[in-house]
């Protein structure tokens, strides 16, 4: 079942998709009066209006600057930017709950859903970006089947900084039981043996490993958090074949000065502060499960990443 909400001309400028949805349904009319259709009708509905084709995808290991990128893109009126839209997760993981759902169905549903979100509701809209949930990196094969030509990036960061961030405020993906163990190739009994911190480290490692695997075979490039945002932004524009007015560029660069998750606050660098608070257990488990994959990502990035981009 597909639940529809009325957006009008509202743009997706909030850090996360669900925030825009909440804004829409906050009004009583948005809560009370909504269309519902079947998923099978979505294709026909999608085709009823022109859509903007997807321009670029953002995958990431979480807490690594991906929201900064999506917020910068959202600052330009030419861009439709969908940040971790929950219905995508519902489709991607639908076969875990309903094994009769085929990959072909999921590919079709992804195309229909994205095509509908990409309806051009404002004349200026020309580009569509999707920032996926971090664990969707493991779904790259089915996403690339649905959208084979779309260039993507995978954003990652010094793993101890990510682990400290996750310890302070855990994302769903690092909580045992929130995601199906078979997504990671694990049996439920394996998870029961892991501590909470170990589980988080191993999930992040799986996400990074998936990115490394698909970078070589797919249409992707690696980005280290430390490259963001100024030095790499022109490279992104070339990679995604984008041309913006000076005003739009100024808006995007101005967005980088805000805290990406709470744009009313200024951005504060926090990498060193995070590392300083890491416990011995956190350091040991991060080293055990993540340091090696991080070095492999760095090596690959230097080999095939954006040319000429310094990392301090």
């Amino acid at each position, binding site marked *: 079942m597909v639940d529809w909400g009325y957006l009008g001309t509202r743009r997706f400028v909030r850090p996360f998709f669900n925030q825009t949805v909440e804004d829409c349904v906050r009004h*009583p009319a948005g809560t009370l009066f909504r*269309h519902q259709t079947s998923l099978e009708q979505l294709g026909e509905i999608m085709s009823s209006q022109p859509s903007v084709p997807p321009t670029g995808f953002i995958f990431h290991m979480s807490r690594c600057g991906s929201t900064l990128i999506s917020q910068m893109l959202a600052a330009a009126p030419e861009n439709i930017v969908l940040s971790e839209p929950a219905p995508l997760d519902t489709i991607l993981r639908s076969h875990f709950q309903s094994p009769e759902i085929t990959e072909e169905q999921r590919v079709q549903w992804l195309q229909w859903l994205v095509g509908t979100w990409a309806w051009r509701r404002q004349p200026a809209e020309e580009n569509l970006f999707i920032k996926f949930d971090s664990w969707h990196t493991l779904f790259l094969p089915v996403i690339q089947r649905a959208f084979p030509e779309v260039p993507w990036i995978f954003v990652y960061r010094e793993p101890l900084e990510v682990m400290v961030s996750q310890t302070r405020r855990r994302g769903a993906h690092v909580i045992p039981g929130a995601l199906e163990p078979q997504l990671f190739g694990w049996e439920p009994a394996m998870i029961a043996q892991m501590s909470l911190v170990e589980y988080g480290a191993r999930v992040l490692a799986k996400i990074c490993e998936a990115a490394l695997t698909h970078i070589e075979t797919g249409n992707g490039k690696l980005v280290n958090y430390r490259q963001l945002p100024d030095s790499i932004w022109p490279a992104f524009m070339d990679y995604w074949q984008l041309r913006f007015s000076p005003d739009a560029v100024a808006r995007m660069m101005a967005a980088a000065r805000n805290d990406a998750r709470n744009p009313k606050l200024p951005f504060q660098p926090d990498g060193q502060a995070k590392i300083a608070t890491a416990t011995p257990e956190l350091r040991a488990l991060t080293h055990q499960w993540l340091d090696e994959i991080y070095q492999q990502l760095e090596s690959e990035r230097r080999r095939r990443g954006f040319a000429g981009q310094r990392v301090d």
Partner: protein
Amino acid sequence: MDMENQRANLEGFGKLVLADLELHDRVRAANPDAFAELAVKLGAERGYIFTVEIVREELQKKRRALREKWI
């Protein structure tokens, strides 16, 4: 009029709102605090009779369902 009939009338009015863009824009433009009263008035004008209490009850149900969907 009993509650079931009123709920049916509110549902009927809702279908009208979704089919009529001008009516839709009127209800969307309402001050949220005065929405229930406006819905009752506009519904009655079109032959759909229900009370403010029914509107608020249905709103509460749908908000709860939405919250549960996001958990």
